[in-house]
């Protein structure tokens, strides 16, 4: 089955994930996007959301990101993010805390449309996560 491609998820501190995948779903700036093999070369921004990677052996790994950038080129997907966590490592406290901070920021008045959009996305995603 030759329909897998290389995926690397990198944070400033270390390489978080490096494996072959058959499909990766990323929360791109303008909506969720799934990437399969031989996708066109693309560079896109990430908004807060969840990255889902379907590994070769059928297992699924999920990561929570706040921001970042993804590049797909010649069947290699590289995701760079300074705020990325494996869903398994998330704790309830962390999510509650982040939700609260986000909510506080949203209640500020002089917010740009862009920031408001990102914060709303973050809040929606945080609500969806179940541990």
């Amino acid at each position, binding site marked *: 089955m030759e329909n897998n491609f290389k995926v690397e998820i990198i944070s*400033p501190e*270390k*390489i978080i994930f490096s494996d072959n995948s058959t499909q990766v779903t990323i929360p791109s700036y303008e909506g969720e996007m799934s990437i399969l093999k031989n996708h066109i070369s693309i560079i*896109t921004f990430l908004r807060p959301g969840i990255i889902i990677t379907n590994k070769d052996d059928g297992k699924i790994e999920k990561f929570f990101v706040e921001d970042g950038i993804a*590049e797909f080129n010649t069947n290699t997907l*590289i995701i*760079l993010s*300074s705020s990325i966590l494996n869903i398994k490592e998330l704790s309830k406290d962390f999510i509650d805390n982040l939700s609260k901070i986000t909510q506080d920021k949203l209640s500020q008045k002089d917010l740009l449309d862009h920031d408001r959009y990102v914060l709303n996305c973050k809040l929606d995603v945080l609500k969806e996560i179940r541990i």
Partner: protein
Amino acid sequence: MPSLDDLKKRISSVKSTQKITKAMKMVAAAKLRKAQENAEKGRPFSEKMNNIILNLSKSIVDKDNASKFLVGTGKNNIHLCVVITADRGLCGGFNTNICRKAKNYFDQIIKDGKTLKIFTVGSKGHDQLKRAYGSYIIEKVNFKGFRKITYNEAEEIGNKIIKLFQEEQFDVCKIFYNKFKNVITQIPQSQQIIPIESIKKEQEEKKSENFYEFEPEENEILDNLLPRNISTQIFKAFLENAASEQGSRMTAMDNATRNAGDLVDKLTITYNRSRQAAITKELIEIISGAESL
């Protein structure tokens, strides 16, 4: 000629110094392993980031409207130098090497009649530079009391630089740090982060080979990505610096331990000689006293 007592005291003091330097070497060696690991783990991120920016900038057609971080302000008058050093001394030539490299560059800028602004990160660099270039220093930051420097700290400094840039306080920004090559060699580096230097060169070499789709527009991505790249480059400099500092300290302390050992040997010989001389002198006195009777 120092007395026997003095020699004894000196020997024991050198020995206890040797113990300290030996302990510091051990500590540095243990920290080095960790710091080196971190530095190596951090490299892919900044490399990939550079790659993406390179690919992006290749596909930008409208150079005049491109982000200022990429093409600069078009002027070359005010230079901001970010000198990244350690907060602690006793690490050989580590801090001095960075400062020397920076000073050379400062003199060049002053000679060319351009305006110089200095941003020091780490207290040792500030101490060394404030005497000669005190009036140019506009900002100083140190991380005394921090156990570990994380990406957040780098981002903080990055944001400060970006703010200064947006206020048009400078045209060109360079960072100075030590690149970790191996335990014995650390190379002082200067890297231009605004406008991005490496891209300019490579851009001329190869014109766009592969086409990318962008989401959102190229310029929008670049506007967002370039400020983040600054934090990334600074964080990389931090990691390299941390590894270099420990490596440099380890080498320096190893040398100090060895020197202390040599000194102890030398002092012991002098001590034994003068003890022997004292005994001989006493014997001569006794014998010649007995003879004269």
